[in-house]
Structure formats: C-alpha cells, structure tokens
C-alpha cells in the first residue's frame, strides 16, 4: 500500500446516461512515470478531472499516498500533494509570468491566505519562483504579461505552475499538444527534469513522447483500461494493436 502513490479502485463516472469511465482500476507506484493513452473520447481527460477533484466520481475510490482523496475538493487534493496541468492553457492571463509561478508557489510555502506580509519581502518565495523560472527556461520572460507569451511558452508556463507547489504526484494533460518537433523535444526534457524523484501521470497523444518518457503505460478505451504494462509489453499487446495502435504504429512509435 505504502508503495502506491496513486490508486484508483473501480472508478466510475457517468454524465446522465453516458458512462464515460466504466470501472477503472489503476496503481501508480511512487516515482513511476505512467502514461495514459487511448483514442479521442476514451475518457482520459475525464479521468484526470476525477483524480484532481474537478469532477466527483459516480462510484469508486481514489487514494493518494494512502489517503482517500475521492470526494475532496480540488484545493484539498492539491494541498495533499497532487498537482495537475490542463490541456488548454489555464494560466492567469493578466499577470506576469513571474506572478503566475509565484501563485503556484505561495500555498506550499505556508503563505496561504496571509494578508499581513508584503509579498515582495518573502525571500524564499522569490527564490523558489526564480529557480523554477530558471529551470523551465522562462527566466528571460519573467516580466512579460502571460497573455503575450507565444503558445509553446504558455504551455511551459502551464507546467511551471503545476510543478511550482512541489507536489509529489504530478498530472500532465497533453503537455505537448500543438507543439512543433523542437518544442516537443524541449518540453520532454523539461518534463523529465521536473518529474525527477516524483510520480508522474501523463496523458499524451504523441506516441514518441509516451514511449520515450513512460515507465509504464495504460491504454484507456471507452472508459476502460484494456492493458497496462511496460512500453514493450504495450507495443506487443495484440489487444492494444487492434483497439488503438493499429493506424498510428507506423508514424508515431519508434521501432
């Protein structure tokens, strides 16, 4: 039990009559980099929304490091050490890049709702913010308003906010969507660096990224996980080939 960072037990979610997630069981070990793949509409984003508390599951349980998190609010789950990014960049548009990251840092450093401190005097917050900006390579753009960032940089900022709070478990929802090849390479390097020593759960369409990055892969089809295993196992699994990889094998998966 204690070795599982994240555990989903018979998780189900329906919207009205539509059963989007139909009984998902999944264990992600501490320190593991786990990818979830599957065709469009398989319920990958819904799964993320369930884990991060954006939606309430219809039934089933979610455990994080031995604590039950299903039924909790997003901010409670975040405080317990789980952080997520969004498929569509979800940043604070009217703030500068630095302020964006700082918002991600504040709570974890114990400055919750404080109103008696000058934010400019919080040295460790400034240091941590600067360190993260340095890590993700946005330090030169720290003072730009977030809206003025080019698309790829906004995606990077999205990741920066996600990792800013120092969460142990990180969920990334299609972090490289819409990026060019070189941008994708940089993003993958960043994700590798950022997830060092942490547990990573990632939804990704780019098979190159998935097979490079992941220790294990789960394949989600119509709200059910049809296979879980190492990249080799998944590549060899006939069920997966049939259901999903079929048409994409040639273009995406490195031989």
């Amino acid at each position, binding site marked *: 039990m204690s070795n599982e960072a994240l555990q989903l037990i018979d998780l189900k979610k329906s919207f009205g009559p539509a059963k989007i997630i139909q009984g998902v069981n999944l264990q992600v070990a501490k320190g593991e980099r786990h990818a979830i793949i599957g065709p469009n509409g398989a319920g990958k984003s819904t799964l993320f929304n369930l884990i991060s508390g954006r939606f309430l599951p219809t039934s089933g349980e979610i455990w994080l490091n031995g604590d039950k998190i299903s039924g909790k609010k997003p901010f409670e789950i975040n405080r317990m050490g789980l952080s997520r990014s969004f498929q569509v960049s979800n940043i604070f548009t009217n*703030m500068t890049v630095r302020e964006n990251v700082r918002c991600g840092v504040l709570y974890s450093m114990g400055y919750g709702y404080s109103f008696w401190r000058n934010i*400019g005097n919080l040295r460790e917050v400034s240091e941590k913010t600067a360190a993260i900006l340095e890590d993700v390579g946005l330090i030169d753009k720290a003072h730009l308003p977030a809206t003025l960032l080019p698309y790829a940089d906004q995606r990077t900022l999205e990741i920066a906010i996600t990792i800013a709070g120092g969460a142990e478990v990180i969920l990334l929802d299609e972090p490289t969507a819409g990026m060019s090849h070189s941008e994708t390479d940089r993003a993958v390097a960043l994700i590798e660096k950022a997830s060092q020593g942490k547990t990573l759960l990632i939804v990704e369409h780019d098979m190159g990224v998935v097979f490079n990055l992941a220790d294990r892969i789960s394949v989600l089809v119509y709200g059910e996980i049809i296979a879980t295993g190492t990249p080799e196992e998944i590549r060899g699994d006939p069920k997966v080939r049939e259901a999903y990889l079929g048409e994409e094998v040639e273009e995406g998966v490195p031989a």
Partner: protein
Amino acid sequence: MTDMTTTYVDLAPSRAEKFRQRVLPMILFALALAVIPLFGPSRSTLTLLNHMGINIVFALSFNMLLGRAGMLSFGHAVYLGLGGYFCVHVMNWIAADTGIWGAVPIFTMPAFGFGAGALAGAVIGWPSCRRAGTPFAMISLGVAELVAAAGFMFDSLFGGEMGISADRMGGPEFLGLSLGPLNEVYWYIAFWTFVGVVGTYAFTRTPLGKLSEATRDNPERVEFVGYNPQRVRYLVFIFAGAFAGMAGGMSAVQDEIFTPENLSLVPSGAILIAAYVGGIRYFTGPIMGAIVMTYMGSNLSDYTAGWLLYLGLMFVGVVMFVPDGIAGVVYGTWDVLRSGRLNEVAAGWAIRLLGLALMAVSTITLVEVAFRWSDGYGEVFEPFGLELAHGSPLTWVVIVLPFVIGALLLRRVARSESEVTS
C-alpha cells in the same frame, strides 16, 4: 534549498525602482494633503475636500472587490453605513462618558469603523460570497435592500428616517485637535485618507491581495494551486467591508449624522460609478474617480437640474467607449507624451476632441431644453444670450447639427486608426 540560492536570480525590482514606483507617489500624496490648507480654503471647499477624502477611501475599498477580485457589488454602502452608524453610537457613548468610553479620542473613529465594517463583511459575506460573478452582484443588491429596510425598522439602532446624530467635539483631544473647526476636521480626514490609501495599496502587495487578482482572472486554476476561491473572495470581502467602514468612521466625524439612507442603493450606485469612471484597472483610478465625482456632485448640481442625467450619460459613455476610465486616459496620454509620439497622434486627438466637444454641445442643449420644457415654467435655455426655446427650429439645429458632425468626425478617426493598426 542550498543549490537554489546559487541559481537565484533577483527578479524583484531594484530598490530605486521600488522607491520611485511605490514610496515616492505616497510621499507626494502626503505632501499634497499637507500643502492644501496653505491655500486657505473656504469652509465650503474644506467640506468638499473632506468628502473627497471619505470617497477616496470608500472607492478604493470598493475597488478591492470590483477591480482586484472581480466581484461586482451593488450594495457596498452597507459597510460604510454600518461602520459609520457604529461610530456615531461610539461618539454618543463618548459624549455620555460612560465607562471607559470617556477616554477614547474621537480621532480614532475610523479604527472603530474599520472593525465594524469588517464584522459586517464577515457576517454578510458568509452567505453572499458563496456565489461569484453575476449571482454575487444580484445577492449584494438583495442584501443591501434588506439592510436598508432593516435600517428603517429598528429605530433604536438606526434612528428611523431622521437618523442618529452625534457631536464630534466630545472626548479627549488627540494631537491637539479638538475637531471643532472644519480645518481641524480636514487634518483628521487627511490623516485617515492617507492611512486608507496606504492600507489598500499594501493589501494589493500581500499574498491574499495577489491571490484575489488570480481568482479574478481564473478562479478554476486557483483551486489547483491549493486555494479555495470562495475563501479568497470571502476574505477580500471582509477587508473591503473594513475599509468601507473606515470611510464610514471618517464620515461620522465630518457630517456628525447617519441615516438609513446611507445604507441604501443610492450611495452604493454612486461609488460604483465613481470607481468605474475613475478606472478600475488601476490602483489610482478610484482615487481620481472619487475626486472628480465628488466635485461634480457638489458643484454641477448647482448649475443644472439634469446633473444626474449627465452623470448617467458619462457612466454609460465610459462603459462603452473608455473602459479604462479617467486613469486609463491619463496614463495613456502620459505614455504618449513621454515617448515623444505626440505629433503622430496630435491630429487624431484634436479631431476626436472636437468631435466630442460638438456632441457634448448638442447633448447639453438637448438635456437643458428638455428640462426646461419638462418643468413647464416657460423658462427658456439661453446660453450666451442665444434663445433656445423647445419649439424653435434653431434649437433643433443646435441639437442635431453638432451631433451629426461630431459623430462623423469620431467615426472617421476611429476608422483611420483601425486601418493603421490592422
């Protein structure tokens, strides 16, 4: 942590920058407050200045909600009113010298107002802050109606329609101010205005203040960095109530009376207009708005019966065409002047100004003629000896012609500018 310090890059603004951007304006503001009495303002000017100070703090507290946290309140006067009422009661306790009250200087009233406003915000905010956006706005309106109605009902607390008055000359003197003469009241107001401005500015620099901006921009993301947006809004609401209550304490000493009318939708709407016309995206916007609106409110009403109509027209005009308000125009102009692009835009500005002036002429004529017609006393609008009766063709020429020309001019400028940018 240790390796972090090695890569630590100081992104914070330098000391000189901080001084120039934050400390210097405050010093200048304090200087301005200190210099004003040297001009020997008259009693009516002093009263006007005092009301400006009160409205500055009030408008800033309102903007903690609308501008910073994105919460539109139609009932913010409730907190000024409740804070002010509490102070009026305290002043009466001081006058009666009961218990320890005899030792409390009247000078400290805004602190009491601050506390009462915060308490009111904490109690009323609890149900209201459960919703954001449009529902919050509607709820604030309902709550304001409720409190105002209660104000008319409980005479011992609110004094009925007559309100409750107090005397500002009781209690021990503070800083040698008896608070009797208006110029002493000026110092009192100036002091607390400064405290209010510094306080509301300092709030924007706290983690909570920053998070309120984040919640305004993207409440959902705030949840995923560990914050409860409802909680953020609620706390900001309490602070906004507190600073409004502080303005109430200032007002209690200046005017020495509070009536249930002070709690109603009318002053709430007025401060909304003042803050918005001033420019809610800037910290200084509400200050400018409060100054301009207070001035207009006290002077324009002497000139014309239609000043509320002008106010409404101005507000709608700002909402539609100048969303950044007075502050936006001031800073925009300043940027152009500083970057030396004045001659590029001068022609456009001149035409625009001319267009606006023409439309203003026509609007003013229309409103003034209409008001005189409506009064039915047969009075005729005679600007510069020009007789403009409501039936005469000349009047309609003066109304229609400048309007059309002005509108055409504005349209031409807008078109040519959009061509340049596209």
